[in-house]
């Protein structure tokens, strides 16, 4: 196994305090109650734990707790927001138009594809070479029948941020709702609903040292944003997400939110410093390098290309020491590579060499120095083998 984990954008290790908080809710004798069983203490203590977690999520977002709906993942929260608000509108013969962006997570883009099959009209905004969208394009895309604008706060491949507050300001006076996929941003930067003015917001515990398999959708409770549920059943989560709540998971999400709230904004500065150290360290090696994505970025993600070498070869070479991600999936399974880098118009030598490093709570400056040394050594070795470089001579 790689010694150093630098793939925190994919997932993060559980914080020990989160594990500690979850364990009592995985007990064999206690802590197993169904939060809906209000007739006895087993159920009532479980319900209290769920409500406490709801407040912890809401506090992190500085938003009313009634808005929090627990889900099984950010993917589910996103599907609920995107499919739920569009279906609610379309079933009532109201608007059927949605605006999103080419660099959104596949959870958003695939849900939009489904809506298209159901008769919705989807506008996918382009981005520039830095990964930024244009507010003028958004303004132009808005129609009288636009129901939803769905944009991410920070991109999971490049870290590039959309100016959500500016988007919300632009939507002032327009009936369209704003959904923000904040999955990568939560815990890394302040994600405060009063500042963002979003109507819907998705997040996932495992991206900020909480457990996998739990997320949340915050939807404005007052005036209530209406959603067509994805799941029908016992009416849990205000009828919007039926199914017995996974108490231990929800408690873990709540605890992760509590820890994140305490750690910010110092953690944001620490992560930024680590990322900057990484990029500066690699630049100082003199190996030609391109940083993919520019402008405001999330503090923990760096998407880099070394033109002339193949990202997959680099990753295989460093794998015994470093766990990082390919910037652009380019195996035959997805020969077209990353949709994000493609949307930014990267040429093939850049997109095929792209890889992503992402730092986390336990990453130290010394880890970064190791990463720089390992990546630089491999990049130099592979560039010597590359025909896309000034030609080397056999030794």
């Amino acid at each position, binding site marked *: 196994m790689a010694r150093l984990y630098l793939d925190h954008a994919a997932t993060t290790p559980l914080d020990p305090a989160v594990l500690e908080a979850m364990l009592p809710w995985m007990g064999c004798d206690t802590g197993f109650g169904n939060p809906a069983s209000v007739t006895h203490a087993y159920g009532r203590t479980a319900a209290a734990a769920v409500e406490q977690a709801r407040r912890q999520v809401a506090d992190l977002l500085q938003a009313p707790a009634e808005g929090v709906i627990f889900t099984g993942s950010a993917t589910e929260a996103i599907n609920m927001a995107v499919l739920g608000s569009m279906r609610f509108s379309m079933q009532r013969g109201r608007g059927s138009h949605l605006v999103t962006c080419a660099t959104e997570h596949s959870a958003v883009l695939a849900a939009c594809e489904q809506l298209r099959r159901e008769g919705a009209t989807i506008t996918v905004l382009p981005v520039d070479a830095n990964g930024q969208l244009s507010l003028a394009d958004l303004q132009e895309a808005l129609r009288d029948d636009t129901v939803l604008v769905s944009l991410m706060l920070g991109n999971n491949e490049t870290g590039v941020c959309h100016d959500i507050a500016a988007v919300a300001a632009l939507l002032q006076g327009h009936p369209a709702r704003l959904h923000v996929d904040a999955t990568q941003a939560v815990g890394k930067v302040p994600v405060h609903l009063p500042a963002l003015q979003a109507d819907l917001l998705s997040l996932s515990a495992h991206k900020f040292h909480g457990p996998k398999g739990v997320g949340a959708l915050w939807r404005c409770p007052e005036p209530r944003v209406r959603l067509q549920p994805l799941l029908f059943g016992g009416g849990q989560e205000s009828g919007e997400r039926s199914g017995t709540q996974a108490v231990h998971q929800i408690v873990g999400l709540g605890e992760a939110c509590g820890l994140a709230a305490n750690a910010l904004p110092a953690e944001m500065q620490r992560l930024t410093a680590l990322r900057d150290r990484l990029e500066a360290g690699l630049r100082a090696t003199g190996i030609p390098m391109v940083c993919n994505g520019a402008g405001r970025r999330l503090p923990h993600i760096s998407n880099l290309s070394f033109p002339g070498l193949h990202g997959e*070869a680099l990753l295989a070479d460093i794998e015994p020491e470093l766990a990082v991600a390919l910037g652009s999936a380019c*195996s035959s399974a997805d020969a077209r590579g990353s949709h994000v880098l493609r949307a930014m118009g990267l040429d093939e030598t850049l997109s*095929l060499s792209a890889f992503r490093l992402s730092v986390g709570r336990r990453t130290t400056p010394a880890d970064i120095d190791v990463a720089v040394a390992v990546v630089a050594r491999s990049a130099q070795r*592979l560039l*010597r*083998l590359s*025909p896309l470089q000034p030609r080397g001579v056999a030794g």
Partner: protein
Amino acid sequence: MTDWSPALLRHFRSPVGSGLLAGDSTEFGTGEAGAVKSGVRIVYQLALSDGDIIDRVGWLAFGCPATIASCSWLAESLVGLSVDRARDLTGGQVMVALDIPRDRRSRVLVVEDAVRGALDAATTMRDT
């Protein structure tokens, strides 16, 4: 990520024969194949001794670990072979020797193309 075989990783991490051949370009044949756009680009070179034996090999490769390992395995296998024996070496043998995953086999064929190109060039050079 793909699980590469130990043999493949050995060639990938310590490749044999990498780099281009030194000396007068009339002494060796060069073959090129692939395109950056499709994620593989190979330059392969072979030099023949008087007895039509391959005595030097050089190559450069842009591609995944399977691509680089294939170039290396062939370099190791080609040196000392006659041109005719070299022509019998196929991508299929590379695939077996390195246990190349199915979805990477097309990359080996690109390497094979570059090697064939180099063999053709080297024999043409010899005949002129």
